[in-house]
């Protein structure tokens, strides 16, 4: 049964992919990519990758589409018709595709228990995580503790992305605050936004602090948090949103998140452990692990949320 659902979802994904390539209206393409993300999140759920599915749900359904729409608004809705013949690109794509398919021949078969992914560290993570870290969600313990260095790198990459967007787009620290009469007419929108805004923030906090137990964690929570503020900005205007959470504050927060993460690492060094070795943070090693994971997830959440908002502000405050 699950295999059948898998196949159907993969087929629908393929159809959507081809339609995205064929379609000329870029806003239509944006809608199709959001459908693509919905379908792939269902696929991740079927594959039991709950944390990935939650990430896809948070990013694909909300923020990615909003940012693409903002880009279309800054540029144009119509795809340019290429003037060159598509022969050479087609050849390049075919050659690359053939090379990639040739590469998969060496890969282990689907579900092969002897595949390298199942043999080296994965076993010990699954086996030792309940004893060493005591967090029910193994994904969180791998991401935040065993692979804490990688995650610190990822957060730094996200921070760098915000710095890049700021350098390229820049933004006025205060957007034009046009309290247009048009908003006041859209009663349904304003009421819904008012109702949903606190709920979204509450759910973001739940994802943030429940990440040890269920799917979720700082990355997903940060994106959901930012989506809440984007909804607020869409309904009440960018200026109002910037009064609620100013751009200068966002810049400080984006850096603060990375610093919290790194500070946890330094603190564990000062207490006599290695960098990001959480078990020295408290008297009980397991309590130390919990504290460390909670703190670094908090840092991740703060950075991700502020970076997403910085990028959104950067896109929409730019004059056309």
């Amino acid at each position: 049964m699950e295999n059948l659902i898998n196949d159907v979802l993969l087929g629908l994904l393929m159809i959507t992919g081809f339609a995205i390539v064929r379609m000329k209206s870029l806003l239509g393409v944006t809608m199709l990519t959001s459908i693509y993300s919905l379908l792939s999140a269902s696929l991740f759920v079927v594959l039991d990758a709950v944390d990935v599915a939650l990430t896809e749900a948070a990013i694909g359904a909300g923020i990615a589409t909003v940012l693409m729409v903002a880009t279309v608004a800054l540029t144009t809705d119509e795809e340019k018709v290429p003037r060159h013949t598509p022969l050479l690109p087609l050849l390049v794509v075919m050659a690359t595709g053939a090379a990639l398919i040739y590469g998969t021949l060496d890969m282990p078969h689907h579900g092969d228990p002897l595949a390298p992914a199942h043999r080296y560290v994965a076993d010990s993570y699954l086996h030792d995580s309940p004893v060493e870290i005591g967090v029910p969600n193994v994904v969180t313990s791998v991401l935040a503790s065993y692979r804490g260095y990688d995650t610190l790198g990822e957060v730094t990459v996200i921070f760098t992305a915000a710095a890049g967007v700021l350098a390229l787009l820049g933004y006025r620290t205060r957007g034009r605050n046009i309290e247009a009469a048009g908003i006041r007419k859209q009663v349904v929108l304003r009421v819904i936004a008012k109702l949903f805004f606190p709920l979204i923030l509450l759910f973001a906090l739940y994802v943030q602090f429940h990440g040890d137990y269920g799917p979720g964690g700082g990355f997903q929570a940060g994106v959901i948090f930012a989506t809440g503020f984007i909804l607020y900005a869409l309904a009440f205007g960018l200026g109002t949103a910037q009064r609620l959470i100013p751009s200068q504050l966002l810049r400080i927060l984006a850096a603060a998140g990375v610093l919290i993460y790194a500070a946890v690492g330094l603190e564990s060094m000062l207490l006599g452990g290695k960098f990001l070795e959480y078990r020295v943070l408290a008297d009980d090693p397991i309590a130390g692990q919990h504290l460390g994971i909670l703190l670094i997830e908090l840092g991740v959440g703060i950075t991700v949320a502020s970076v997403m908002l910085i990028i959104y502000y950067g896109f929409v405050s730019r004059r056309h």
Partner: protein
Amino acid sequence: MFIAVSSVILIAIAVGLVRAIRGPSLYDRVLAANMIGTLTVLMVAILGFMTGRPEFLDIALVYVLISFVSTLAVLRVHNPGAGTTASSVKGSGEQ
């Protein structure tokens, strides 16, 4: 039971996808994407109970809460009545 429900949902998603691809207007596509969003919420919930892991409902909840934000953004940009398509994405509602 689960099999019947999930196949009906998959068929409905496929039908919605046809509308999203064929269009012809942007509103058809927006509606289709919205409908597929709702169906995905149902699908994820069904899968959660089918595999005995009700914590999948978290994912369904995320979709319920934030999937309409992107629809809102598209409708803010696409505003042919006002004669301009780009300026209203500023989120300041200059219609």
